[in-house]
């Protein structure tokens, strides 16, 4: 929960998931594991391969601190990974308040991002782009000022320069654009109602044909 500017703060993972749920934006099953005995119960339900991440407001750079484990294939590996994360954090950031370890299924596919930023003049601005270098280096993003309807959302998706990566270029599975547009429309709806929310980052969202999974979320609100 690092503070950004005066009055602005980042929602916790659970708070973020809950507010998204209110607008039917679903994240894939995940679990916060608080003891070794819970591993079996949750990890089998979520499915493999798994990724595990430390949950603590005190750990900012999770990977650097040894707080992230990926490609976990079974229950045995999950137990080992859980131990490794706790040991590493206790060693590297002894003062950290550890809330548990988040277990999520790992997905493969094309990374996209869906975002919202509240502009002082125009209100909520929705943002769409491909993840990773496409956003950061190529600045290949499209925008639309809310409210955004389904056909405008489709228009946003089609406006990016690298759209061919989503429509099946180079033998990849064509992405279900309607489903992606649904998420954009829901984020638009959320941002029109929840005016205390200033920024939303669904990043990455992993797309594999019809399979669309929001892997991580960052929401900034203002008191």
């Amino acid at each position, binding site marked *: 929960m690092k503070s950004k500017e005066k009055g602005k703060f980042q929602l916790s993972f659970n708070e973020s998931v809950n507010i998204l749920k209110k607008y039917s934006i679903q994240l894939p099953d995940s679990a916060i594991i608080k003891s070794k005995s819970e591993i079996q119960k949750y990890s089998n339900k979520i499915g493999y391969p798994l990724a595990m991440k430390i949950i603590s407001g005190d750990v900012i750079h999770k990977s650097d601190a040894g707080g992230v484990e990926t490609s976990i294939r079974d229950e045995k590996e999950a137990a080992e990974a859980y131990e490794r994360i706790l040991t590493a954090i206790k060693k590297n950031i002894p003062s950290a308040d550890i809330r548990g370890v988040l277990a999520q299924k790992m997905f493969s596919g094309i990374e996209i991002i869906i975002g919202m930023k509240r*502009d*002082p*003049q*125009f*209100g909520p*601005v929705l943002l769409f782009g491909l993840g990773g270098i496409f956003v950061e280096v190529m600045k290949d993003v499209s*925008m*639309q*000022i809310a409210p955004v309807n389904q056909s405008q959302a489709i228009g946003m998706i089609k406006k990016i320069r690298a759209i061919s990566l989503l429509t099946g270029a180079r033998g990849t599975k064509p992405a279900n654009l309607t489903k992606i547009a649904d998420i954009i429309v829901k984020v638009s709806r959320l941002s029109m109602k929840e005016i205390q929310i200033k920024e939303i980052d669904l990043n990455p969202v992993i797309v594999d044909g019809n399979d669309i999974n929001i892997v991580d979320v960052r929401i900034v609100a203002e008191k």
Partner: protein
Amino acid sequence: MINRTKSKNRLDKLFSPNSIAVVGASRDEKSVGYGIAKNLIEGCVFKCRYCMPFKGKIYLVNPKAGMILAKKCYHDISSIKEQIDLVIIAVPAAIVETIVRECAKLKVGGIIIISAGFAEIGEEGKNLQERIVSIASKSGIPIVGPNCLGIIRPSAGMNASFAPSVPPRGDVAFISQSGALADSIIDWAIESVYGFSAIISIGNQADLDISDFIEWLGEDKETKAIALYIEGIKDGRRFMEVTSRISRKKPIIVLKAGRTEKGQKAISSHTGSIAGSYKIYETAFSQSGVEIADNVEELFDLAKALANQPPCKKNSVAIVTNAGGPGVLCADFCESMGVNLAELKDSTIRKLDKSGKMHPAYSRHNPLDIVGDALPERYEAAINILLSEDYISGLIVIQTLQTMTDPVEDAKIIIRAKKRFKDKPIICTYMGGMFSREGWELLEKNGIPDYNDPKKAARAMKALIDKGKRGLK
């Protein structure tokens, strides 16, 4: 709804007042107060053929002067004792509040505050500005400015500004967040015979803001297209609501400053507006059907095309040219801007062949190069045959000056074609200078846009294709 009608009526007095008072009229020829008085009494300071004295009543107010420009001065507006439709205030900021109070008491129709020294200078100025707006709004008096140039309305013979001169009368309205830019546009417009229906300098937008003026111009019969120079918009959502509505019946073109970080910094010290992200502005403009211009020249290039030409209904355009080079350039620009050049059908070529007017070496494809020695009759045959084809929705006519070229006769042919093919846009590129002038002036007088550069013609055609997509007539 009630509000909308009210706001339209509220602004009428600013554009067609029967009487104007100038508070701060001055004898000092170098002062703004003198310039405004002279602009009303004589039409302008820099004389041109478009200057005309304001026909309504003019009252000059200056407690210290007896006469200015052979006109009696009043001690204050209360001593005028006649109905005043419009008050122009050009006195130091500190006295403005007192004057506005007087205006409120007298229930004047509207106020233009030229004076600077308000929100743009900081907190103190901002408070003064808010007090003034609250006094006027209690009496329902609209305020233009402060910190602005004023309003010019050529059709009403009104130069209620300190602009040095006045442009020809026309059908493009210009709303500018920079007064000085408007000044230079006027000088250029006189030289280029570019007509305006209104020029409005909005200044700090303390009361009336850009959206109010766009809304008023949307109903204005003199205005066919609205050009905007914007640095920052305060209420972005209202701007989008208004422009989305108005752009469905009248084209709106915008030039937005502050595309770079340096430009944005310059804006905050200029008008005190928050520049905001250019990408978000671009998104807002295209979402609201506002055409985006890249620079000052393009703003007015597009405005004149959009004001008078019908939309290009299908993205399928032809080029007629008497020169290969400019035709090739134009094809390049069309292609890169997304203007599709139609493939000429065999049946079209047969008609051209059969006309008996073509040179044996004419190009037989689009761009249709009718060769340098083209006389008016060859232009006529080519233009009419191309525009008769259903699959061609718009035409670019390029003319270079050869020994046998007749720019005026060619212009007459184009004007006739325009009358015959009312629903298809024609854009001209008379490349050249003094010997083409009479020709392009004739074209422009008849509402056919002419540009000296094929790139501009391609850009204008692109805007007309966009106009079609927006469903404008």
